[in-house]
């Protein structure tokens, strides 16, 4: 009976893992990259200077700029720079939006030191990976639905995988290299078990984040089918006074930062909203930056009168269920993580990506053994092989090409940001074609070698197309920029090694064993 159960779980693990593995690999990889969203954006918009300055000085510059360029606008939004995102951005909405529609905003980026406008090249930056991670480049709400389902399957695959794994503790430290299929399974188990707390946290928290999609029943029942009412209660909007109709002079905003910080016992402000800036009833809402705590902040804000500086309202302290949901949210996104912890997050993400990748390779490897002698693969195995190649190594090529496009497309090109994204998908599509045309191992080796070449050459391309090469960024201590280049170089070397291993194992395989998979795993980096 017990073995029967374990076998059933093994079956579930095998097939749930296969069907969603390709998608989950892409979700995990882009999610891992999204931990460095701001740093990637910084690299992709090198024109925006990285300068650390006090929030007060930046805010004073932003207010000055908005008073010059957007006086009387119904709403201003100011995003203050922080350590990871050094840009100061302002947006404004000239006339209030009609209810039910999104307002039209004008956005400008300012140099936080001089207050002058900065024109960065048009790009999605790291935001592309972040959005793809849960929207999959599909129209709302289909992408979110699909990724929610993928998260659920991931959870099922994790639990069934734990049950299937007979010797979790006995094999805890086990990894036997150069043993073909055995090594792949050891590697899959090692990254799965050793990083299990991360896998469970990340998968479960994604379900919490999408809870209204996953389990709408309780919300619908309690709020009589009105999901909006639930969100209104969860995220209380600040009440802002109506316009007085009389002109008023907005007081300097910078001193409000100090007062908000006192109310939050030291927390800092992430962004400000100013309503009806030219009116006597102008109001200023300061939203807290959640990066100083693990528990994610669902919109802690304080509201001041913009003219008199009088405190109008403050959101209440988070209730216990919100703290619990907030901690899952916060753990998943890792906004609070400093540089070291952020790298650890990144490595855990890579481990998760590697776990999925090795799983896919094992599925195929096991079944290929049967057909090794005849040398002819049935259609379904060939299909899985093509999809494996395209979704693993093809995706890596596409990521590299996305970065290349950022440097090679003309800065003034119309629809530039879209073409960066297009080139990502075009190359990903081409990798499928390439995998169809070439034989399995040759396709692996060629795509991995191409990835290696593209990543290794990225620092060089950066040096040729911008003045921000490694020599300059390292000297200036611009670690986001330099770190990106160095990480690309490191990933390139890693891919070169995997390509070489793959090539050599292929030759060895012909000579001695029918099918010996090389060691690709550890990290299916970048």
């Amino acid at each position, binding site marked *: 009976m017990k073995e029967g159960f374990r076998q059933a779980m093994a079956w579930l693990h095998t097939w749930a893992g296969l069907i969603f593995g390709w998608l989950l690999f892409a979700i995990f990889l882009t999610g891992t990259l999204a931990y460095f969203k701001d740093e990637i954006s910084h690299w992709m918009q090198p024109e925006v200077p990285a300068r650390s300055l006090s929030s007060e000085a930046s805010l004073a510059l932003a207010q000055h700029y908005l008073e010059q360029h957007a006086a009387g606008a119904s709403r201003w939004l100011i995003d203050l720079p922080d350590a990871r995102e050094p840009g100061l951005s302002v947006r404004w909405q000239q006339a209030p939006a009609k209810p039910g529609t999104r307002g039209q905003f004008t956005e400008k980026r300012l140099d936080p030191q001089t207050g002058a406008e900065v024109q960065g090249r048009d790009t999605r930056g790291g935001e592309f990976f972040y959005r793809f991670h849960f929207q999959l480049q599909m129209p709302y709400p289909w992408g979110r639905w699909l990724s929610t389902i993928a998260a659920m399957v991931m959870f099922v695959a994790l639990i069934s995988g734990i049950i299937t794994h007979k010797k979790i503790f*006995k094999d*805890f*430290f*086990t*990894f*036997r*290299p150069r043993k073909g299929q055995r090594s792949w399974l050891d590697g899959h188990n*090692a*990254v799965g078990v*050793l*990083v*299990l*707390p*991360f896998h469970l946290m990340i998968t479960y928290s994604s379900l919490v984040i999408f809870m209204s999609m996953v389990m709408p029943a309780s919300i619908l029942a309690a709020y009589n089918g009105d999901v909006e009412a639930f969100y209104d209660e969860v995220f209380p909007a600040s009440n802002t006074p109506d316009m007085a109709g009389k002109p008023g002079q907005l007081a300097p905003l910078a001193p409000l930062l100090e007062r908000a910080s006192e109310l939050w016992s030291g927390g800092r402000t992430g962004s400000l909203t100013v309503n009806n800036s030219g009116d006597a009833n102008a109001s200023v809402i300061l939203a807290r930056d959640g990066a100083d*705590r*693990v*528990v994610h902040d669902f919109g802690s804000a304080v509201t001041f009168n913009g003219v008199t500086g009088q405190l109008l309202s403050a959101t209440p302290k988070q209730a216990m269920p919100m703290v619990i949901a907030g*901690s899952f949210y916060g*753990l998943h996104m890792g906004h*609070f993580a400093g540089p*070291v*912890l952020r790298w*650890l*997050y990144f*490595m*855990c993400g890579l*481990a998760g990506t590697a776990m999925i990748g090795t799983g896919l390779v094992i599925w195929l490897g096991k079944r290929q053994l049967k057909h090794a002698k005849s040398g002819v693969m049935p259609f379904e195995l060939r299909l899985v092989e093509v999809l494996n190649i395209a979704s693993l190594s093809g995706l890596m090529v596409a990521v590299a090409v996305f970065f290349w496009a950022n440097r090679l497309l003309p800065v003034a090109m119309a629809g530039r940001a879209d073409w960066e994204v297009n080139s990502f998908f075009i190359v990903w599509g081409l990798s499928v074609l390439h995998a169809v045309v070439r034989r399995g191992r040759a396709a692996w080796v060629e795509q991995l070698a191409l990835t290696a070449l593209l990543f290794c050459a990225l620092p060089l391309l950066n040096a040729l197309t911008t003045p921000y090469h490694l020599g300059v960024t390292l000297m200036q201590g611009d670690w986001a920029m330099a770190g990106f280049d160095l990480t690309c170089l490191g990933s390139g070397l890693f891919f070169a090694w995997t390509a070489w291993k793959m090539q050599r194992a292929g030759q060895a395989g012909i000579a001695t064993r029918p099918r010996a998979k090389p060691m690709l795993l*550890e990290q299916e980096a970048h």
Partner: protein
Amino acid sequence: MFLALLLCYGGFTALCLSMDRHHAELLGRKPSARRRQAMKLSGWLLLALSLWAAVSSTGWGLGLVEWFAVLMLSALLLVWLMTYRPRLALALAGLSLLASPVAVFAKG
């Protein structure tokens, strides 16, 4: 976080050495029953200590997150080193145990 990392790595190495197969791989012979027990006990003790080290420096919220992070990655590091650089794996464990009092002192 650094102290927690040192203790985690040392703890996992001790736990690893408390298993016959790994002890034989790394040190060339099977451990005695007493040695096995001692290794197991000290391994768990070191892991518990590392939890204390993480939590005492940054509080429960961030401390637990950091502890899990170093826990997972020190185990990955150990398994990887054991396969390709077994001597280095052991040397690092010894070094991290030697360095951990220094880390306590430097922090205090």
